[in-house]
């Protein structure tokens, strides 16, 4: 599941299309350069929706987007977008979406605003009016100016459909659908050109660079200002790039970028299939399921963008946002007078000193997402801590292992998960992996599957001690502090951000550069905007895939889920 497009905290502006005429010169773009190689990066469902929303405004909805999320490679769905194609079934869905969007664009309530001109006749094609619309829409949807060949194609489609169906609108809708199913929209086509600074080498062309920047920072298409900087060549100058990055970092659209990144990094696509037994945990309702990831994303936006706090604060902060459903799970009396209003009554909330539900680890989005349906799992939680937050790999369990002891919750001898896992892990083949996962997961055993706090399991007091790399801790507060200060936590975020933005693993040289970046930023902690600033201002961010190392091979299988 990608971030649902709920009402954002930060306000964004009108549609790009509506603003285009104010900023972008009309109809004067040069044809796309056909000299370089082209690399494909498939849009994620979230990027698809955000692009449509930004280009056409909030009046145009992407309904029933059921296109798949792809697969996770090296910890990120983003890396998988360089490898997945589009199947026949997905093409059907994309065509359906395209029709729905086109229909909304030519709806009488918004057509004149979005198309930007009135046709001479409602029942016939109008190449002049249609052409100006296609140039504008094409610019944002293809993230570069249309070539003459492309514009001619859309005009031909418009003319044919408008004539055949006796409707100017039908002609507009047909050509717009054509854009929306074209590979130039469904994939980001990263195009290369000779790099003048490095003879014989290639670099991303300006429009491709603009897209890479925009989808990392905003999870959406470049806006008119960025495209204009690409067109003029200023984006490929140090000063021009700085100007654009600074402008973008201050934009409310940053919220979409940070949401999309953490949705991927924290594996929130897992919510699509999360099943918590509501007979055992009646407070874990459908509302909790819907609100859990949103709580975390709101906390992240608040901490990293609004308060500009360092990343480490996410683990220890007592500030969050709650809904009544979440408050019930966490045992918090939520004062309804604080409601912000709107469809979802999100309330900013600060836990009292010492409350266990601190930071990201105390939230249902971590505790429940990494549990079994009816029982907590120190192993799954420890694995998630290692893989998602520290970027360390935990090997899959070997075949031919007897797990019988682990969760026989009726075992009269081994009452707690710790006792059962300790007994299970005495087997040599199991011990190696459980040593990696369980000691971290044990520290969260005070939380049941549904993220509720508990002091005992089946009458036995819970021992929440654990360790990480020689540092011992007891309970969530100490674990959170250790994670906040661990160099691997910062290094993981930095590496993941670069990988997410470029959809590939960094090379050895790039890792060295990223390590240096971590050292430079160590003093004040990693702040999101500063991290993005440093990454996006560096030439490594714009490197061409072929000049980077091959994407590592290990990925999850099509039906694989956490074991």
């Amino acid at each position, binding site marked *: 599941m990608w971030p649902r497009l709920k009402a954002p905290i930060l306000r964004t502006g009108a549609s790009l299309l509506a603003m285009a005429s104010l900023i972008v010169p009309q109809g004067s773009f040069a044809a796309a350069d056909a000299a370089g*190689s*082209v690399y*494909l990066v498939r849009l994620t469902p979230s990027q698809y929706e955000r692009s449509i929303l930004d280009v056409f405004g909030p009046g145009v909805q992407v309904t029933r987007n*059921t*296109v*798949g999320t792809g*697969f996770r490679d090296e910890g990120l769905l983003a890396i998988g977008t360089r*490898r*997945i*194609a*589009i*199947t*026949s*079934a*997905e*093409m*059907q869905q994309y*065509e359906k979406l395209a*029709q729905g969007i086109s229909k909304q664009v030519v709806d009488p309530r918004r057509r004149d605003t979005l198309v930007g001109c009135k046709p001479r006749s409602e029942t016939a094609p109008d190449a002049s009016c249609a052409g100006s619309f296609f140039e504008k829409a094409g610019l944002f949807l293809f993230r570069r100016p249309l070539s003459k060949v492309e514009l001619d*194609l859309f005009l*031909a489609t418009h003319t*044919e*459909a408008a004539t*055949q*169906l006796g409707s100017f609108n039908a002609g507009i809708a*047909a*050509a717009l*659908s*054509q854009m929306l*199913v*074209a*590979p130039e929209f469904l*994939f980001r086509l990263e195009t290369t050109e000779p790099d003048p600074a490095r003879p014989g080498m290639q670099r991303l062309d300006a429009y491709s660079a603009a897209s890479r920047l925009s989808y990392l920072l905003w999870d959406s298409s470049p806006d008119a200002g960025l495209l204009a900087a690409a067109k003029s060549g200023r984006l490929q100058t140090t000063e021009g790039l700085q100007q654009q990055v600074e402008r973008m970092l201050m934009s409310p659209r940053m919220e979409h970028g940070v949401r999309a990144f953490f949705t991927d990094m924290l594996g929130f696509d897992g919510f*699509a*299939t999360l*099943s918590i*037994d509501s*007979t055992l945990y009646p407070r874990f309702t459908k509302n909790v399921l819907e609100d859990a990831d949103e709580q975390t994303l709101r906390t992240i936006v608040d901490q990293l963008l609004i308060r500009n706090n360092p990343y480490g604060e996410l683990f220890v902060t007592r500030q969050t946002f709650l809904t009544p459903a979440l408050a019930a799970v966490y045992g918090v009396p939520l004062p309804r007078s604080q409601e912000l209003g709107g469809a979802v009554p999100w309330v900013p909330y600060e836990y009292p000193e010492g409350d266990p539900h601190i930071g990201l680890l105390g939230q249902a989005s971590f505790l429940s997402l990494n549990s*079994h*349906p*009816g*029982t907590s799992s120190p192993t799954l939680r420890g694995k998630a801590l290692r893989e998602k937050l520290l970027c360390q790999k935990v090997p899959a*369990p070997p*075949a031919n*292992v*007897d*797990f*019988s002891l682990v969760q*026989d*919750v009726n075992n009269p001898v081994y009452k707690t998960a710790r006792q059962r896992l300790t007994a299970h892990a005495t087997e040599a083949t199991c011990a190696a992996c459980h040593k990696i996962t369980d000691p971290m997961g044990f520290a969260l055993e005070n939380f049941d599957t549904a993220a509720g706090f508990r002091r005992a399991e089946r009458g036995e007091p819970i021992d929440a001690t654990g360790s990480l790399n020689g540092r011992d801790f007891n309970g969530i507060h100490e674990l959170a502090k250790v994670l906040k200060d661990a160099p691997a936590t910062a290094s993981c975020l930095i590496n993941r951000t670069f990988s997410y933005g470029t959809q590939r693993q960094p090379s050895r040289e790039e890792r060295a550069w990223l390590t240096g970046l971590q050292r430079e930023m160590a003093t004040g902690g990693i702040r999101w905007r500063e991290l993005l600033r440093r990454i996006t201002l560096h030439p490594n961010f714009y490197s061409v*895939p*072929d000049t980077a190392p091959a994407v590592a091979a*290990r*990925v999850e*299988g*099509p*039906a*694989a*889920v956490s*074991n």
Partner: protein
Amino acid sequence: MNRYRKLNRREVLRGVLGGTAVSIALPVLECFLNESGTAYAATGQELPPVFGTWFWGLGLIPQLWVPKTTGSAYELPEHLSVLAPVKSKINLYSGTQVFLDGKVNQNHFSGAQCQMTGVVSRNGSDYTTSLDSLVADHIGKRTRFRSIEVSCDGNRRSTWSARGEYGMNPAEISPAVLYTKLFGPDFRDPNSAEFTPDPGVMVRRSVLSGVSEQRRALMARVSATDRSRLDQYFTSLRDLETQLSVELERPIPLPACSQPVALVEADEDIGTLVEQTRKTHKQFAQLLAHATSCGQTQVFNVALGSSFSPLRKPGEPTAYHQLTHEERIDPQLGYQPTCRWLAERQMEFLVDLIQALDSIREGEGTLLDRSLLFAYTDHGEARLHSMKDYPVFTAGRAGGRMKTGFHLSAQGDSATRVGLTIQQALGMNAGNWGTETNNASKVFSEVLA
């Protein structure tokens, strides 16, 4: 030449797609099918076959499911007694295995991968064209949907259907959404006396053709690493164009076609509890039976859920996958009792699907008679991630090309032998199938008619 590919269309339709919509009245012939219901009376051509796959997770209880004898006179063991109502319509294959050929056993992946693709890969990303896609290329090009994929656990990724590299076909998880997709406003009743080619569909096809025409220019520029992905995009585009072309042709009348009861979201209860899964599966089974009887598709794929099965018994805190590893073997019974219970429920679901296909009469036979259903799982013994003794089933007679009611032992051969038998039963020109030791060249000739 695919003999099922296309039936003769009325020539009068030729030329009407030039721009003007027309209504053409063609009466449905009352005696459209021949007496046995296996062919069109007018043309003598056979009704097209239907192929379905059905995946269930975590196998069966190993020592309980293999019948004592082979052949047609075998008795179902108690563990499989739920299959009794359909025993004469299925074949049961034992003694199959999946050879790893030195590769790592990717738990809950390698076994199903091999049965669906003939390949055991080194890692999970190398999943490529599956059996259903091979079959669809052979029989499914002239239907509105090339294939339909569904999953009953709410997980779109619970699918083993793929076309090309990295081309997993995501599963539909909502019966209500599938109902609308199949029988919503775009559905054309094949038995309707009136046929009007939809000018909107003509435009849609033309839109796609316009994109297809750009193929050469883009393929010339794309990097070598991405060429196959772009090629697959254009293949998918062509598939959709072909499907729209089918919608512009007068459908072949199918007297057995009837629309199912409409489904809306309120009718759904998607979840992983056994009864939820059963309800979702039954809804999908009905939709697929009606869809195939109405010629909307000839290929479908059903997954009860992920191979790490999330199925749950009510009140049981642990899901099926965990249970296979964690439930104690009852010393008296000699097996894991809750795992057995869940495995048998899944076999009941299989019966539900078989009966849904069998309930649609076509002449003197049923839809099941011209269908071939392939049921497979991920492990022989899930508790130990075993790659041996996979329980495999087929159901249906593939239009008379398969005999049913048999228990067959593969005697240690690769499970791909079943896939090869299926391909031959469906008239595909396959002499062998699979890679390395999983390359099968021997079919189960006893059941090929």
